[in-house]
């Protein structure tokens, strides 16, 4: 007979070995370098496939002589290997060059608009948690019934629907047809002006609005975030829902839950007390993968709702064929994804030492 104590022993984590965590972190950290290096190289080469960036951005706008002069000044008429070496050197110094269309340092663009994207990603994660986890628990609790089927279909629809399509539908319904939610922007004009006048802005509007001390500004910022956050968050919510449901059902079949069930613990309590926490552990890992999804999804969501973050700027620079800016932004996104995955790996290792082996 398996007792509750035996069942607990089954899920008890393996005791960490001395130095194992640090070795794991070091290996993961070292692996980031070639990953980023390969990414930078691939992006650099892809951006050169269509020729030099000056011609891409300004070809047809400048007379041939001026174009040639600009190409020469920027050094794009030199051997590719020389350009590559200089670019890599610049990246290591934190210098991604200047955009071609408006001459601004790419780093400034990254810093200026990165906070907006971060804010949107956080809102989307809140939506994903708020929808995905409770609904996943509900689906597990009502497994194999119509509620479970309906939620599973909704989850599939959620992550199978293209983000831009979902964004457009939300915008058409709630902004155009019903007129109840704003179609674009991160805040109303007057709120943005007020935030602009704030000393030491963080660029995260919700924080800035709270610092401003005006309830209407906070409300305005949150109100503008509803549709973009839903458009971006529903995809991840669908994934969370499926993951939580599967893990909770899996845990419900484990020995210690069977034992608890035998002791007369009700199904609702089993789900919400015994199966709930272990089922959340894999979500930590999935969040790492979702960061990449959220950042790539941000390009479409930010463009649809004119949420002026990195994704929006990437789309604008792509339209302008400003490949220096595009290159810098893509490399930055790649680095963020690599670093985030590193952090998630470390957190996962802290939660569950078995991942270190």
């Amino acid at each position: 007979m398996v007792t509750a104590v035996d069942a607990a022993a089954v899920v008890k984590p393996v005791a960490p070995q001395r130095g194992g965590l640090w070795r794991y972190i070091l290996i993961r950290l070292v692996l980031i370098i070639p990953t980023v290096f390969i990414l930078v190289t691939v992006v650099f080469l892809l951006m050169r496939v269509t020729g030099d960036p000056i011609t891409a951005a300004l070809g047809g706008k400048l007379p041939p002589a001026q174009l040639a002069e600009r190409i020469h000044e920027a050094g794009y008429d030199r051997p590719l290997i020389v350009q590559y070496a200089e670019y890599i050197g610049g990246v290591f110094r934190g210098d991604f060059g200047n955009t071609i269309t408006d001459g601004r340092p790419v780093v400034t663009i990254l810093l200026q608009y990165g906070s907006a994207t971060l804010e949107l990603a956080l809102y989307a994660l809140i939506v994903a948690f708020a929808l995905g986890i409770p609904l996943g628990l509900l689906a597990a609790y009502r497994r194999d019934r119509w509620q479970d089927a309906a939620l599973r279909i909704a989850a599939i629809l959620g992550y199978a629907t293209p983000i831009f399509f979902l964004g457009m539908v939300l915008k058409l319904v709630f902004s155009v047809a019903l007129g109840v939610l704003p179609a674009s922007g991160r805040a109303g004009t007057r709120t943005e002006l007020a935030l602009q006048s704030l000393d030491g802005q963080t660029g995260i509007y919700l924080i800035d609005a709270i610092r401003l001390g005006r309830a209407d500004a906070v409300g305005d910022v949150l109100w503008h975030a509803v549709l973009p956050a839903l458009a971006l968050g529903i995809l991840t919510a669908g994934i969370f829902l499926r993951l939580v449901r599967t893990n909770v059902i899996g845990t419900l079949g484990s020995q210690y839950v069977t034992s608890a069930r035998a002791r007369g613990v009700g199904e609702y309590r089993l789900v919400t007390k015994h199966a709930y926490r272990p089922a959340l552990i894999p979500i930590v890992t999935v969040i790492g993968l979702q960061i990449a999804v959220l950042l790539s999804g941000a390009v479409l969501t930010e463009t649809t709702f004119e949420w002026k973050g990195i994704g929006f700027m990437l789309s604008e620079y792509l339209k302008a064929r400003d490949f220096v800016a595009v290159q810098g932004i893509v490399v930055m996104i790649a680095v963020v994804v690599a670093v985030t995955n590193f952090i998630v790996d470390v957190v996962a290792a802290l939660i569950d030492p078995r991942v270190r082996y």
Partner: protein
Amino acid sequence: MSLVHIRRGRVGIAVAALAGTAVMLAACSGGGGGESTGGGAGGDLIVGTTDKITFIDPAGSYDNGSFAVMNQVYPFLFNSQYGTADVTPDIAESGEFTSPTEFTVTLKDGLTFANGHKLTSSDVKFSFDRQLKIADPNGPSSLLGNLASVEAPDDTTVVFTLKNGNDQTWEQILSSPAGPIVDEEVFSADSLTSDDDIVAGNAFGGQYVIDSYKINELISYKPNPDYKGALGAAENSSVTVKYYADASNLKLDVAGGNIDVAFRSLSATDVDDLSKNDAVKVVDGPGGEIRYIVFNFDTMPFGAATPEADPAKSLAVRQAMADLIDRQALSEDVYKGTYTPLYSYVPQGLTGATEPLKDLYGDGAGAPDLDKAKAALEAAGVSTPVTLNLQYNGDHYGPSSGDEYAAVKSQLEEGGLFTVNLAQTEWVQYAKDRTADVYPMYQLGWFPDYSDADNYLTPFFSADNFLVNHYDNSEVQELITAQASETDAAARQSDIEKIQELVAKDLSTLPLLQGTQVAVVGKDVDGAVLDGSFKFRYAPLHK
């Protein structure tokens, strides 16, 4: 109570509190969609646009979005009054040719920038000298090609020495993107000054100063009490300009009352839709943009470099095309009236504009005429159908170019005189190909540098014109040179009219459409002036 319970309880309370706060705050914000407007004379206005700024340093940009800012904040020696394309002294007291190659300007007394610095002739000299010295490829220094030097003999006198005498476009050039006067104590003499430095230096002397600036997102303007120019003081308390990437969002916001004015660039269907909305007013005026087809005289059918070269047949092909084009249909069906038919080379609204193509081609009243087209080809002995290879571009002149050229193809093929092979090329390649004789006939568009007929004639029909289409008519070229230095206004206008008449007979290009400036304003907003200056000024706007 277990740890899990405690955590879940806290999370639940936090989520509930957050949700409650969000709902309460959202309610406080009135739904987030509405915008309260402040008080004050003429009110606070919000203008929306899809234009983009590159730099607000006049030496570093030459585009609509950047010039729209410069127009509000920098002083000009000459400018056009509201409602006209013709220019008069602005911060200048007077300006005239004191010799054929010397244009002397006298400044008004006591001019200052908003930062308190004196605005003297030294600043004027500095402004033009730096344009020539920096000569940024993205800047407008090419407009100053006739400027030899600038002198400032005293604080209020400026003498421009020109290479070619009696330049009748000079006053217009002083009002153009090359003409803003900047503060020599803030701007760099030999490099571009950053937008942040300009704003921080409050280096403005126009009708407005910039109160806050976030490029291509939000700019707020306040009236400049130190402006002493001819345009007068602003009739509003402030203007905030919001920048949009998508015209449909601009439309939604102006229709919903979130912004007071939408200027540039709503789509034709959006304007058509908004014109039926009682909450807004559609204001229009002549636009400086023209759309046209260029003929390459070497490579078009029967062109000089083709095996069947025949100038008479080549002209007949062009004439027959002109007979068949239905500009009214293009205007209404494709552009919903946001472009109007263009029957000349100089758009309506500018001094000297005529409509010679209306009389010469089609039914004589602007409509197409198939019989006339047939007759033109028959008279020249051209066998039909003639194959036309017509090129257009889909990514530079707006998304409706495809519809426009599909309609042109359909019009030209109606009656069986022409078979049109329509092809599209991306702009980067297009711009290279068109000057390399690749396209026998092709689409182009033009925005003026300044509001003068000359800007629609010299670049197109002079010997070394930018079209590089091998058109060469010595009589036209002599007249172009003559009008540029003709000091008698009536005689100059006569020259301009004669040029249009001659070119209409030669058909070096085929004008199709003239842009219309369209602004959509809230029903309580007045003062939107769209005129032949093609400058949209915020100062007369008020509620």
